[in-house]
Every structure is written in C-alpha cells, then in structure tokens.
C-alpha cells in the first residue's frame, strides 16, 4: 500500500461545517471507500466494453432478440 495526499477545496460557507464533520467521521475511510467504488465501476465498464467488442450481434438480430424478450415479458405481465 502506498500513501498519497489529497487536498480538498471547500466552498467558503462550508468550511466550518466540514471541520465539524471531520471530527466526527473518518474522512480518510470515506475517501478510500469512494475511490474504491470509482475504481470498481471503471473496471466494470472496461469489462462490459471488452465483452461487447467480441460480440457478433447485428442490429437486425438485436432487434429480433429484443422483440422476443418483450413478448416474454408481456406474457409475464398477463398481456
């Protein structure tokens, strides 16, 4: 694990509020969790794009498929 430093710019009117919150919550933990979440989302985006890039699905077949799925969904709704 490597340690990095972050600086935040906070609007003037929130300075006191942020100082107060910093005493009660672990900002480091919050930031670490946020970054972890962002990294996870970016990874998911890459994986989805990688899968799609191997796909041979055409516009025509995609339309057929979605109609097929819609019919099934409609049936499940009793339509």
């Amino acid at each position, binding site marked *: 694990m490597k340690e990095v430093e972050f600086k935040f710019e906070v609007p003037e009117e929130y300075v006191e509020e942020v100082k107060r919150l910093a005493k009660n919550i672990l900002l480091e933990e919050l930031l670490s969790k946020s970054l972890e979440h962002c990294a996870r*989302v970016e990874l*998911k*985006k890459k*994986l*989805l*794009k990688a*899968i*799609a*890039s*191997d*796909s*041979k*699905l*055409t*516009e025509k*077949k*995609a*339309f*057929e*498929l*979605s*109609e*097929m*799925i*819609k*019919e*099934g*969904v*409609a049936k*499940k*709704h009793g*339509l």
Partner: protein
Amino acid sequence: MLVVDTNVLIAGIINKSEVLDTIFKLYDKGISLFSPELVLKEIKSKLSVISKYSELSEAAVLFFVSTLFSEFIKPIPKEEYDKFLDEAKKVSPHLKDAPLFALSLTLDKAPIWSREPKLKKQKFIKVLDDKDVKEFFELM
C-alpha cells in the same frame, strides 16, 4: 431519471454500438436508469439464443447483463408499477410495451429511451431515441 427499453439493453451488446458509452455517460452524470425487473429475468431465460446470435459464451452474456443491472440500471419489481398497467395499456402503441409505460408513470412520467420509432406516436410520455438522449441530457 430514464426508463430503458429492452431494445436499448440488447443493443448494448453490439460491437462498437454507442449505446454502452451512452449508458456509462448517463451513469457518470448521475442520471438514474430503470427497467422492469422481469426484463432481466427474461433475458436470463434467453441466454442460449443471445449467445448464439452474438457468438459470445452464455457466461459472458450472463456477466454482461448481470453487471449492467447491478451497477448501471436499476431493476424495478412488477409490484411497484403494477397499479399503472391499465393506464399504460391505453397509452402504449403496442400492448407488449405497456410495462415500460407503466414504469414511466410510476416514476412521474420519466422519459423512455427506446429505439422503436412507433413509441413516439403517442405524446403522453416523452420517448427519446439514442440521439435524443444525448441531446436531452447534454452528453454531446
């Protein structure tokens, strides 16, 4: 908020389709995307056909849709929009699209993102195609 039609979700699996990028941009902008939960169930029941048409493995297709629905699109249970189904049937140009309209009505007439031009025949709920979505949410 935006209700996503099945034809958009499936188009996301097309290679070099801009749909996936648009979904990601909407997510990054904090726009919430919704779809009936039964769509996910139905897609899961059609894995072999999707796999055949896309030449992707069933596992890849399953991962694709599961990830899409777990992170980028919120599946809504039928019970949550059921009460609007009758009204939706009157509005929707096709009966099969009524769940989509019912979901939109549940979400205060949230626009529907669809690649089916006929859905634009009605004027009660805003229907956006791929290009409209980019303009509407200023993704250009």
